[in-house]
């Protein structure tokens, strides 16, 4: 089945590329420019890359986001809270459990505050809460699709495994530091009502999943297209291995700089990965690329601003510090291993 889909994508890529070339030829003629660039391998490579990867990524996004939303409809945060709060999972087990639940629980940065308050209010330890808070946005379905589509499933799995590991370790450290008093006081004063967890019907699950797919696509399509377009241009014109001498394994600062650049890039996570996939082809080592992507998804400026509502500056700083250090360590580690 996959080869049939691939065949259709390649056929469509051919027709779209042809159409675009006709359009470009017309525009170049209009300005009396030399159209020979349209015959070059660089141009053909870039255009093919752009159409093929755009269609592939959007198709994968639609299918995988749909499946993930169905699975997620069984794990609303209210249920996660109950599972963690019943006291069955304390200590290390609690952190592991929280990080794993972070993968399946629906989460966007806008619900970080309510989820944080809900967890703390129901007596879940701060360290366990952080394990959840870190893994939830970092290990998300959009990153999964982009990594799978552009790097293959091995790298996608590696990303998930490292993301969960970072969440567990960072949560344990924050728990050990006993920073409960650096949570804003009002959080402890909120009394949460008990809500009955509704069990949606299958019809509702499907409808909500379809709705969610549309919502995600609407939000990220410009970034994906711009990201793939830039990736396509690099694919056509930048020679393989070109980056190795600047950001290769020999440069001890590469991981560090990559993590720093990733911090302000949050909403572009979907657009960043196609560029990163090209950067690795140009010679950026995988560890550097992984830590860059983690920094994009987990260390984002908007998320920090939202978390500041519940965390005092000191705890927020500790959180950012631990995350940055773990992501950097992971980058160097993978640069050595892979």
């Amino acid at each position, binding site marked *: 089945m996959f080869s049939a889909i691939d065949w259709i994508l390649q056929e469509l890529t051919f027709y779209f590329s042809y159409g675009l070339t006709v359009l470009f030829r017309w525009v170049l003629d209009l300005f009396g420019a030399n159209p020979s660039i349209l015959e070059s391998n660089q141009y053909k490579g870039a255009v093919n890359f752009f159409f093929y990867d755009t269609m592939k990524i959007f198709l994968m996004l639609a299918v995988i986001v749909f499946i993930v939303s169905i699975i997620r409809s069984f794990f609303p945060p209210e249920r996660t809270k109950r599972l963690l709060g019943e006291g069955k999972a304390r200590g290390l087990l609690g952190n592991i459990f929280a990080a794993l639940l972070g993968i399946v629980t629906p989460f966007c940065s806008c619900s970080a505050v309510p989820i944080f308050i809900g967890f703390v*209010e129901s007596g879940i330890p701060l360290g366990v809460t952080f394990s959840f808070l870190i893994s939830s946005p970092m290990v998300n379905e959009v990153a999964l699709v982009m990594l799978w589509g552009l790097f293959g499933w091995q790298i996608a799995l590696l990303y998930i495994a490292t993301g969960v590991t970072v969440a567990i370790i960072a949560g344990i450290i924050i728990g050990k530091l006993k920073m409960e008093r650096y949570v804003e006081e009002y959080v402890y004063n909120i009394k949460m009502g008990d809500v009955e967890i*509704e069990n949606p019907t299958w019809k509702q699950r499907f409808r909500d999943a379809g709705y969610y797919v549309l919502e995600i696509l609407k939000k990220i399509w410009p970034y994906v297209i711009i990201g793939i377009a830039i990736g396509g241009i690099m694919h056509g014109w930048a020679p393989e291995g070109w980056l190795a001498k600047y950001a290769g394994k020999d440069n001890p600062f590469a991981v560090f700089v990559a993590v720093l650049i990733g911090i302000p890039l949050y909403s572009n996570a979907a657009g960043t990965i196609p560029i990163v996939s090209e950067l690795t082809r140009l010679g950026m080592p995988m560890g550097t690329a992984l830590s860059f992507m983690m920094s994009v998804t987990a260390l984002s400026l908007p998320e920090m601003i939202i978390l500041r509502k519940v965390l005092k500056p000191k705890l927020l700083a500790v959180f950012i510090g631990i995350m940055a250090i773990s992501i950097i360590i992971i980058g160097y580690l993978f640069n050595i291993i892979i």
Partner: protein
Amino acid sequence: MNIKILGSGCANCKKLQALAEEAVKELDIPATVEKVEDMQKIMGYGVMRTPAVVINERVKASGRIPTKDEIKKYIQDEV
């Protein structure tokens, strides 16, 4: 009857509010639709995902936008 839309002002909350107002109008039932944006009040209902709809102080749906028909059913259940 009192209908509350819980949410911190995101696009989905506005959409849900519009749907609830339409449902009330079509059912022709005396009801007020109000918006709750205060995080502490929202949490007071036990809601962790917005938007949520609360009818007569009971949470009917959270974290999703129910259809107009579903909202009508929630209202009729409370009548």
